[in-house]
């Protein structure tokens, strides 16, 4: 049997209980997957050979490992220094000078896709600059804008299900942005899904392109969480000087404003639709200083400082994972500081912990090998959610969710308040995104961004 065994082949083998020659390759066996320093974005996960007579837990651990390698290779490629055209520059290396501009930040922000009046967007055209930001704006500068709150949509300072903002230990609101890659943008453009009018006349099912192993990438969505940092902390974060825009609000009442801030990356979701995952692959990374785990708290093994946890504040005084009290005013420094603890969401799925820890150690070695000052050493994979039961770029009719592994997955900066293990309540990327529709009542293929059409 060849060493490349795709997940679909494994599933076919399982459901048919027939070990067919379809999974037998006559070509030379490929190398087992590994984390590599490369600007190439993986089109899909690559699978190694399963251990003989593997138990269910061992099989899940092995394949989770392959997906986690895919996630790290994707993280490395997306955070690679880009060429002027936005693609990774193979002449450079991630983190060689500490920090660097990244490929994904050259993707198109959804703010510049779903334009007022349903106007036709461009991939590389000018960005929308709010009036309040114009005096400070310089070409190429990132603008993180607050958009109107839309239930179930990740907005600029609120989280999924409108559960509330996340406020750091300095009282500053965390900000968010969502960007999509060129294949995803092109699909939206070609099918006129950037406008309500275009969505209304769209017939058929929304089907974003699937990435292919060794071939082109599929549709990719990136969600990033940023916090305000001080210059003294710059060497621990990927940073950008950002124009933070807050539109006017009536309740609470405050005027539109725009201010220049030094922001550090604290969370990164990467969703990628691939041949082996029509339900998309969901990789989630965090800054290592974000929050302690439940186990860290109970054992007292705490760092001196976290981005979203005060180790000196007792659980009675600072109960964990509480939605900040209203009113929410992101233009002011808040007296309330989020006390975030990473809940154990992998009970029964311990393979997810084991795999992520091993892959994080491998990646750390590689990144430190580039430069001891690489900011990328300060990011860790939480896990990768993948469908265990799926078809080639399409779901199984009786199992549209594909029975995801692990069963639950949350990023403490993006799903702070929905961590846990309750079906349809706690964070599960695939379950939640399966509910997404366009502005018309048509499923939108695991993305909520099409609801932003005007």
């Amino acid at each position: 049997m060849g060493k490349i065994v795709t997940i679909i082949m494994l599933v076919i083998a399982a459901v048919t209980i027939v070990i067919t020659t379809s999974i037998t390759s006559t070509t030379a066996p490929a190398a087992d997957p590994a984390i590599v320093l490369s600007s190439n974005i993986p089109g899909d996960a690559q699978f190694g050979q399963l251990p003989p007579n593997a138990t269910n837990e061992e099989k899940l651990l092995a394949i989770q490992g392959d997906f986690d390698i895919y996630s790290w290779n994707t993280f490395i490629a997306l955070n690679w220094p880009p060429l002027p055209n936005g693609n990774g520059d193979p002449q450079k290396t991630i983190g060689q000078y500490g920090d660097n501009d990244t490929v994904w930040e050259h993707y198109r922000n959804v703010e510049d896709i779903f334009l007022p009046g349903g106007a036709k967007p461009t991939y590389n055209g000018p960005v929308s600059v709010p009036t309040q930001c114009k005096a400070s704006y310089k070409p190429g500068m990132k603008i993180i804008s607050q958009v109107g709150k839309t239930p179930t949509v990740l907005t600029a300072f609120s989280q999924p299900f409108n559960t509330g903002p996340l406020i750091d230990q300095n009282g500053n609101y965390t900000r968010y942005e969502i960007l999509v890659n060129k294949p995803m943008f092109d699909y939206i453009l070609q099918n006129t899904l950037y406008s309500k009018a275009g969505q209304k006349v769209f017939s058929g099912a929304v089907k974003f392109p699937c990435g292919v192993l060794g071939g082109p990438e599929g549709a990719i969505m990136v969600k990033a969480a940023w916090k305000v940092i001080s210059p003294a902390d710059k060497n621990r974060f990927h940073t950008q000087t950002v124009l933070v825009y807050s539109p006017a609000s009536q309740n609470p009442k405050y005027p539109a404003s725009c201010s220049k801030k030094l922001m550090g990356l604290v969370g990164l979701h990467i969703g990628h639709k691939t041949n082996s995952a029509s339900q998309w692959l969901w990789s989630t990374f965090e800054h290592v200083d974000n929050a302690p785990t439940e186990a860290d708290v109970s054992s007292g093994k705490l760092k001196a400082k976290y981005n979203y946890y005060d180790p000196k504040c007792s659980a009675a005084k600072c109960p964990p994972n509480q939605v900040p009290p209203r009113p929410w005013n992101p233009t002011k420094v808040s007296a309330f500081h989020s006390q975030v603890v990473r809940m154990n969401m992998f009970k029964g799925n311990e393979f997810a912990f084991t795999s992520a820890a091993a892959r994080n150690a491998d990646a750390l070695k590689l990144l430190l090998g580039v430069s001891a000052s690489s900011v990328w050493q300060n990011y860790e994979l939480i896990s990768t959610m993948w469908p265990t039961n799926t078809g080639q770029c399409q779901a199984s009719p009786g199992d549209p969710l594909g029975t995801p592994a692990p069963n639950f997955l949350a990023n403490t900066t993006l799903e702070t308040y929905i961590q846990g293990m309750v079906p349809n309540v706690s964070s599960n990327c695939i379950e939640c995104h399966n509910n997404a529709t366009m502005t018309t009542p048509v499923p939108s293929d695991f993305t909520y961004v099409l609801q932003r059409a005007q």
Partner: protein
Amino acid sequence: MTTPPNSGGPSEAVVQDFANMSAALTGFQPSFIRPFLDPVNLSGTFYEFAVAQVGQTMMDALMSAFDALSNQQPPLSPQQIANTLLEVASSTPSQQAQLCQSIVAMWYLGSWYPPPFQKDGLQQVISSQAYTKSLAWNVAQAHPMGFSAFTFGYWSQPPGSLDTFGVNTGGGQ
């Protein structure tokens, strides 16, 4: 991140054997009851739960009875095995058959219905996943209240075939 210890449990062979018996008892495909990759592991959960309710000795006896039926020549069909274990021809099923009835109910409803001989047994939902993944929903080609795996508007389309919901319709496994 801190890695929690992996909890011990029954061996893979025991869980697979229980899954095979459960498939025969419920009329579902073995590969659906115990998928090749099984991150939910209801077979393991249900096995351990049933053992905690009725004891290891009784469960071992049931599994031995199933193994004996499975190894008969000529081979018995899953339906024949289920009929024998459930003692469908008897109006006074044995305690072992009563346990089988509770196992069937556990799979179909995600809850434990204590067999009559379990005097101190408590009717209970086994877990949230046992509820959302209970087989009754698949037979109805539907979904539980408050949890749907289908996309918006699925109700306007005919449901998938019973095979796609894991039911053993005799069309091969």
